């Protein structure tokens, strides 16, 4: 059939039109479920949040519908929040970088295994995360605490105890631990598409391994790196539980601020929280779109 369209010229336009229509039909079919679900169960509820951000907080925490822009004003003038923003972004950058450095070789190793091993290895990476999040974090406390496993080993070696927890370092360990798979999976998916014979070709053309990696492999697996970085960076910036449990709740991250504004302060301030969330989302979404454009679509 495909052949026909090429040979029989007179019917060309009709077939093309038909094809185009079926193309559009197919696109609609593919697009509909996702569009439907996200519009109904995500975008529509989100409208409420947008409305909240222009409303006023009532004395008991109930949102009152007096239009105001004050929430956005507070957001940009209040210096109290700056530290939390910076701290969160720094934690996000650091976690993303370390996850990338640890995750890329891991994904590479898995891809190079025979198929049956690859699935097993993938599952092995995910299985630890099928336990409860809090219990996992508690396990880290047990490992890092003053009388914990690491300190027991250190003391057995005759060295003085180290205060590992609660600390910023413990928070970082917790964040890396919790986010590593989010980096590995997309990179794996991307490496899986990579044609390793290209490395051979590069070598044949005289490129050394480093050059071959930097010039061939890295650019071609950029979509995975980009996706992984986003999946690690975003949750890290918004988290609050890891920093509370492993860091001793002594400092605020962005996630703590939001949590407090919505459900921990009394009265809660939903309008201000909504405004903060909307700015946060807008900035990050634009950043992500740009990031993906730059890193993965230079071929278009």
């Amino acid at each position, binding site marked *: 059939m495909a052949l026909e369209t090429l040979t029989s010229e007179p019917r060309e336009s009709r077939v093309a039109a038909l094809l185009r229509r079926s193309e559009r039909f197919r696109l609609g079919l593919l697009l509909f479920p996702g569009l439907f679900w996200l519009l109904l169960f995500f975008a529509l509820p989100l409208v409420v949040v947008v409305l909240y951000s222009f409303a006023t907080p009532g004395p008991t925490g109930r949102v009152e519908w007096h239009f105001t822009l004050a929430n956005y004003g507070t957001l940009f003038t209040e210096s109290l929040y700056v530290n939390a923003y910076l701290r969160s972004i720094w934690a996000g950058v650091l976690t993303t970088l370390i996850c990338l450095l640890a995750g890329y070789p891991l994904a590479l190793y898995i891809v190079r295994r025979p198929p049956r091993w690859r699935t097993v290895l993938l599952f092995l990476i995910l*299985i630890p995360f099928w336990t409860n999040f809090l219990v996992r974090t508690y396990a880290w406390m047990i490992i890092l*605490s003053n009388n914990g496993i690491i300190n027991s080993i250190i003391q057995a070696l005759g060295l003085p105890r180290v205060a590992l927890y609660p600390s910023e370092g413990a928070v970082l360990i917790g964040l890396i631990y919790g986010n590593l798979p989010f980096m590995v999976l997309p990179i794996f998916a*991307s490496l899986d598409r990579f044609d*390793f014979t290209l490395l051979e070709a590069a070598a044949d053309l005289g490129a050394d391994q480093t050059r071959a990696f930097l010039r061939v492999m890295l650019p071609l697996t950029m979509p995975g790196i980009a*996706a992984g970085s986003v999946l690690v960076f975003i949750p890290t910036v*918004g988290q609050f539980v890891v920093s509370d449990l492993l860091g001793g709740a002594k400092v605020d991250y962005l996630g703590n601020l939001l949590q407090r504004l919505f459900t921990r302060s009394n009265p809660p301030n939903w309008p201000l929280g909504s405004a903060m969330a909307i700015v946060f989302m807008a900035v990050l979404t634009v950043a992500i779109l740009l990031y993906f454009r730059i890193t993965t679509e230079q071929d278009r």
Partner: protein
Amino acid sequence: MLDTPTTRKPYVTGMDSRRSAGMLALGAHTILTMVFLYAPIVVLVAFSFTRDSFGVRWTGFTLDWYRRLLADQRLLGAALNTLYVALTSTIVSTIIGTMTALAMERYHFRGRTGFDALLYLPIVIPEIVMALALLAFFAFSFGILELLSGLRLQMGLGTVTIAHIAFTISFVVVVVRASLKGFDMRLEEAAQDLGANEWQTFRHITLPLILPGIIGGALLAFTLSLDDFIITFFTTGPGTSLLPVEVYGQVKRAITPKINAISTLMLLVSITLVFLSQFIQRRR
């Protein structure tokens, strides 16, 4: 049946000493990372057998926590609810997510950038915000529904599942798209030239090629759903408790090794499911 192109993958023919040294280093890195990933899990599982009621010290072996767990209908019920929601939402969001990813990578259409942004929002949105938005939405629309049809709905496992699907779709899309990028379209064209129809092409060419991405996306979705606390809390209803909500509450008093025990059991169930699916796949 067409052979899956994936089988050509591990390219190990021209293995020179340098490459094998490289693989050795990668292997060592992998082992170290696995130690890092499993250290807390070993602790967690081991401490489900400790006599120490604080669950933080090893003071002797006991199966007592498992005995108590099996008597705790509430916790077991919550664990089953959690598995049910995670499985259902993973299946639905993987299918929808894969379709969406195909549409986004294959077609250019009006409003594509807008939809692109909409797709990233569920990843970017702070959980508490999505939770409260969904709470307001469900309460409001159930009210309208009752007004119109007299049907009185209540939040519960259904609403939790809907919410979990809504936030996991995007994660599936991101991972599947990563595997669709750099996809060699000529493979599909070749198949069609050979007379394969649309569906056959998809099933025998496209699907096997992007399957690793789909599996990766599904695994992410499952993991996210299992652990979610905030959205779950705000979208569930009376009598339908889920495990994360139960455990979060326990932090207030003390997390007993009973929680370690249920985590260990859920780990076992998940691993069994994985091996079963592997086994079935291999038999086919």
